[in-house]
């Protein structure tokens, strides 16, 4: 992967996040608040992204490992913890990074805490490797989806 190519991908992804309203925690919480005055906009973000994604990922099928069917406790617990954090603040990882570019101090604090959480998981998952600075059992995919 060439850095110029991945930079462009990140740029397009970030522009999409900004345009869609995902970088605005107030809007994200307005979407998640189904019992209040509900703003359904963000359903259109996921709908649009998956509509394009279904086509492109089908074309890319031969380049990707088949999707995993493993449903384990870590997947469910981790997703639940993530959802609680997302609901508390209104930031998930991508929009939080993009909000750094707007210069919001709370976004900086959120990203710092998010990185601390990432490193804490690394310690729990592979304590010896982390202490020794070795990379054991690292998934080769960018993420385990």
């Amino acid at each position: 992967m060439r850095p110029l190519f991945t930079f462009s991908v990140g740029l397009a992804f970030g522009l999409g996040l900004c345009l869609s309203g995902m970088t605005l925690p107030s809007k994200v919480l307005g979407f998640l608040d189904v019992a209040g005055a509900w703003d359904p906009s963000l359903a259109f973000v996921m709908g649009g992204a998956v509509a394009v994604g279904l086509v492109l990922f089908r074309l890319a099928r031969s380049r990707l490992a088949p999707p995993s069917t493993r449903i384990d406790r870590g997947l469910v617990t981790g997703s639940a913890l993530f959802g609680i954090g997302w609901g508390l603040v209104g930031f998930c990882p991508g929009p939080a990074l993009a909000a750094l570019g707007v210069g919001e101090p709370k976004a900086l604090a959120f990203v710092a805490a998010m990185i601390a959480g990432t490193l804490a998981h690394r310690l729990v998952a592979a304590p010896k490797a982390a202490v020794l600075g070795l990379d054991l059992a690292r998934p080769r995919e960018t993420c385990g989806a």
Partner: protein
Amino acid sequence: MTIDWQNFTPWASLAGGLLIGLAAGVLALRSGRILGVSGLVAGLFEADDEWRARFALIAGLVAAPVLLGLVAPLAAPTLDAGWLAVIGGGLLVGFGTRLAGGCTSGHGVCGLSRLSPRSMVATGVFMAAAVATVFAVRHLA
């Protein structure tokens, strides 16, 4: 259920979503990688030959609002959450997404697009947990 028509932005959100799907799809087509932001952040602490590519992707993500701000005024993000909730929420998001192996981009956008059963479960759980948390904070507290 009451719809918040004042803040409803279906077209901008749809356009943003299409762009997000395009970025993730092109990365998968060209390099066979999943665009997962939580994984990319974790990857900043992996010294391998793809470090520069991951760093560049994150740099593009951070640069997007800066460049967009030059062309059009951007709405500044408003965080209602206090500092303690921001820090606690960040820790939960960082730890939780690594335990689950993905976040809204990796499991949500990419996983659903490739019809991954694992990602469908993850997305269902984090959406439900987020909705329940907002309900507890706004309507029970």
